């Protein structure tokens, strides 16, 4: 085994290797997470739109589809923005005084939103999927200081999930 006159040096080297491994593991996980959460929803929306236009050819679809297109283009616009906007560009998202038709959407259908966050969103006047789908980077920055851990809204893709849910109920 390790002789006693080397034990301190070996322990220091092992500690250094451990700390180095920790840093590399943390960095690698961050990189993988950033890669996984990159914007990639446009093809899914296009496929969904195509599918809905095929199935509802006789229905009065144009208005619905144009709303879906508006939502999709809003998301694409956001995709082109830098991920980290400066703090000065924070903007409160548009709110509603009350849910439309007196009935709010079930925001908990968005993965990452629980009862507490849903109630916080409702307190901020956010009740519907299309409101979340219209968020821009500045809105997200504003919200992250108030209702969510930093980076969570983008990482869990609330906006993209809301686009899908909004187009599903439209």
């Amino acid at each position: 085994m390790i002789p006693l006159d080397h034990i301190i040096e070996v322990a220091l080297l092992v500690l250094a290797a451990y700390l180095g491994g920790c840093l590399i593991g943390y960095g690698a996980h961050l990189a993988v997470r950033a890669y996984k959460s990159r914007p990639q929803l446009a093809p899914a929306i296009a496929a969904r739109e195509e599918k809905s236009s095929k199935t509802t050819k006789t229905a009065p679809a144009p208005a619905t589809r144009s709303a879906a297109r508006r939502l999709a283009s809003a998301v694409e616009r956001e995709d082109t923005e830098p991920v980290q906007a400066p703090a000065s560009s924070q903007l409160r998202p548009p709110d509603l005084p009350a849910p439309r038709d007196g009935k709010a959407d079930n925001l908990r259908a968005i993965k990452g939103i629980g009862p507490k966050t849903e109630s916080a969103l409702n307190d901020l006047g956010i009740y519907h999927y299309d409101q979340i789908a219209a968020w821009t980077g500045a809105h997200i920055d504003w919200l992250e200081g108030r209702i969510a851990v930093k980076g969570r809204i983008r990482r869990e893709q609330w906006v993209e999930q809301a686009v899908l849910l909004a187009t599903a109920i439209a």
Partner: protein
Amino acid sequence: MGPFGATLLFLLGYYWPFMAVAALVGLVTGWLSLSRREPE
């Protein structure tokens, strides 16, 4: 390279498996430290 460097090389050459295991454990620890679920 002075005596310190020579000692370091000797230790690294002789005890590298210990350091490799420690680095591996550190890698897993660092990775998992980001996987903890954030509070709702």
